């Protein structure tokens, strides 16, 4: 697989990351170690590595050294909605958040449903991207829910998974065919699990709060009905199914049971779903409007438990930039979605690691190792010979979130004080971001 970052000029440098706490669950490492990068790859990880002649040294004492984050659910908006985000601005936001691999969703305009679409994303990523971009393609032509897209051709062009994200494939037979077809390529099918007709014109979680605010409700069964169907199809076809942005207790329970039976399903949840409940709608208005909607405290508890016990494999942002004008509209009209690339790491640290729900090692699995494994990407570890995508994190750095590198600022977390930010971000051996405080030799 090609590493498609901007580096037309490939790194030939030698770089030693010295004295940090290396957290690399792919190699069962969690200890103070040195990491040596030669060119584009990691060449050695060991207790003490002498500084290479002519190479640079990054002093990582007190920092966590981990694989670059792999965000398997990102809307880069290019082509079609460049006012909200571009591949350039989106990957800049990713780098700022310590994310070195971005899996782009195909619901652009036009949708990415053919080879030239995949090639366009890869070319723009090579020209303007600051981190790696792994494109996904649509399941159906035009993402219209009718007829299969040219899946095999897209895979050849570099498509890493297929999804109609933003919508569920509502025709069950069609989805069955897609899964059977994808299985031949060992291609992952990502489903946005939603029963659209049950959702109707709902805009937030159904219940007392929606009743009070006068907003149409979305019952949690909108998700769990689709999750149950998707699990059943994975069971039927044996194809690998990944369930995007899981948000309810019922879904977590279904997935747990399915995994127990050995059904090939994996699942992700988002930082906003594990950090917030529907009450956020009152405080943040349309910046707390997302699909699936924020749930009850009961749902959030189930997500935390699912993350802790491994039922939920991955944390992904569902980074969904929208312009200020779009989000400033009335709640019922404003689009669903929030940006997330730049709050993924600190929310994971503040909400999951600090309270003891996840160890650092487990967190790195959810953020790096598992997404890479689910998608068969050669990243997500610090294995010798692997691409040198590394992040140096100061777990104690505190920042008040005031603005983002993303073109869009639609986030309920603006104004929050969070801890745990990256100090240096390395993609393919190149240091793309380095905080001034970080000492180099």
């Amino acid at each position, binding site marked *: 697989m090609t590493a498609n970052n901007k580096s037309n000029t490939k790194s030939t440098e030698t770089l030693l990351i010295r004295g940090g706490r290396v957290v690399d669950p792919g190699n069962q490492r969690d200890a103070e170690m040195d990491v040596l990068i030669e060119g584009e790859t990691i060449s050695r990880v060991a207790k003490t590595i002498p500084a290479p002649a002519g190479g640079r040294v990054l002093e990582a004492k007190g920092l966590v050294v981990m694989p670059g984050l792999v965000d398997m659910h990102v809307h880069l908006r290019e082509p079609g909605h460049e006012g909200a985000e571009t591949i350039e601005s989106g990957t800049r936001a990713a780098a700022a958040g310590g994310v070195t691999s971005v899996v782009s969703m195909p619901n652009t305009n036009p949708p990415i449903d053919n080879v030239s679409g995949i090639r366009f994303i890869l070319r723009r990523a090579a020209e303007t991207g600051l981190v790696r971009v792994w494109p996904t393609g649509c399941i159906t032509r035009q993402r219209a829910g009718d007829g299969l897209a040219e899946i095999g051709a897209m895979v050849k062009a570099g498509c890493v998974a297929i999804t109609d994200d933003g919508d569920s494939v509502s025709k069950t037979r069609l989805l069955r065919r897609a899964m059977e077809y994808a299985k031949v390529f060992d291609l992952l099918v990502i489903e946005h699990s939603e029963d659209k007709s049950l959702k109707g014109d709902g805009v937030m979680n*159904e*219940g*007392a*709060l*929606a*009743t*009070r*605010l*006068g*907003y*149409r*409700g979305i*019952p949690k069964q909108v998700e769990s009905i689709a999750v149950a169907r998707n699990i059943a199809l994975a069971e039927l076809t044996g194809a690998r199914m990944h369930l995007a942005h899981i948000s309810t207790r019922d879904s977590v329970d279904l997935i747990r049971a399915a995994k127990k039976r050995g059904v090939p399903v994996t699942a992700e949840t988002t930082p906003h779903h594990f950090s917030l409940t529907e009450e956020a709608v009152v405080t943040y*208005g349309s910046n707390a409007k997302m699909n699936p909607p924020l749930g009850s405290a009961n749902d959030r508890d189930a997500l935390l438990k699912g993350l802790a016990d491994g039922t939920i494999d991955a944390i992904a942002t569902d980074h969904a930039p929208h312009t200020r*004008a779009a989000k*400033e*509209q*009335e*709640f*019922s*009209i404003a689009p669903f979605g929030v940006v997330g690339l730049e709050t993924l790491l600190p929310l994971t640290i503040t909400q999951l690691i600090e309270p003891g729900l996840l160890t650092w090692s487990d967190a790195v699995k959810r953020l790096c190792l598992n997404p890479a494994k689910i998608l068969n990407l050669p990243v997500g570890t610090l294995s010798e010979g692997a691409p040198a995508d590394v992040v140096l994190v100061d777990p104690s750095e505190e920042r008040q979130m005031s603005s983002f590198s993303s073109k869009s600022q639609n986030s309920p977390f603006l104004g929050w004080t969070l801890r745990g930010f990256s100090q240096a971000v390395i993609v393919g051996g190149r240091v793309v971001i380095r905080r001034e405080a970080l000492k180099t030799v």
Partner: protein
Amino acid sequence: MKDLIGLEHLSGAQIEHILETARPMKSLFTRSIKKVPVLRGKTVALVFFEASTRTRSSFELAAKRLSADTLNLAMSTSSVTKGESLLDTMKTFEAMKVDFMVLRHSSSGATELVGRDTKAHVINAGDGSHEHPTQGLLDIFTILEKKKRVDGLNVVIVGDILHSRVARSNFWGLAKLGAHITVCGPATLIPKGIEDVFGRKVRVCYKMEEALKDADVINVLRLQRERQEGDFFPSLREYTELYGLNSERLRLAKPDCLVLHPGPMNRGIEISSEVADGPRSMILEQVTNGIAIRMAVLYLFSGPNGFPANISAAKKGKKSLLEIGN
């Protein structure tokens, strides 16, 4: 308090105070000259993104009887769906230096959104399915005038609760003043979790015969005919059969039970003509009271700091209308 968004945000004392202030307003209507100069030089913009004749005229008359100038802006609903920004529109009005924006909009939360962004006083004249506070106030004022109290009364609200802003404002106001609230309608039109939303238990009934027993007040909501297409009920005929208020059903309530309807009525659907025109009907009284309530609201919110939050301090020594009632 700068804006009137909903009765949710008012204290019981504030609600009582608006009701009390509506009384001298209503007494103005018996004068030969029904207009007082108190809001002379103020401008009230009536911004209606949804068609409404009654509420708009009522606000307009209220503003004019207080000598305010009015600016009528009937916005077409199509401009909203075209994505024209509500805030941009409202900023234009602010630049015209209006003192009040009376806003009607099809989206819940629209008034609050606008209120946060403008210096003008924003008065909610109905936002989506959220609240219609002046309607709630005028309903309660009508009840209070006839019954001399609200506390302990059995108030039944019948119909499409799910989509009704009138119902939500009634719930908040009635709950804060201590009424027992019952809702009745098809299960499809009763929103989830309604029992525990409004700070006082709301009783849910699906049978009129059960709901109307011992009722002191029945507030019949308007049935939007288009709900039938949303599969909320099979036909108007069946709705009328199950939930229409007729004189036979009215006999199940207390003999002095009041009947309210926010208008405009679908005669023969949610309410029979016999009841609508009968002696228990307060429907026209509600229209008159609506003007008094809206005058009280415009007056009370017109101060430099809007409506005082601590109203009890200001009215020290004065008996409240509710106390007089008891």
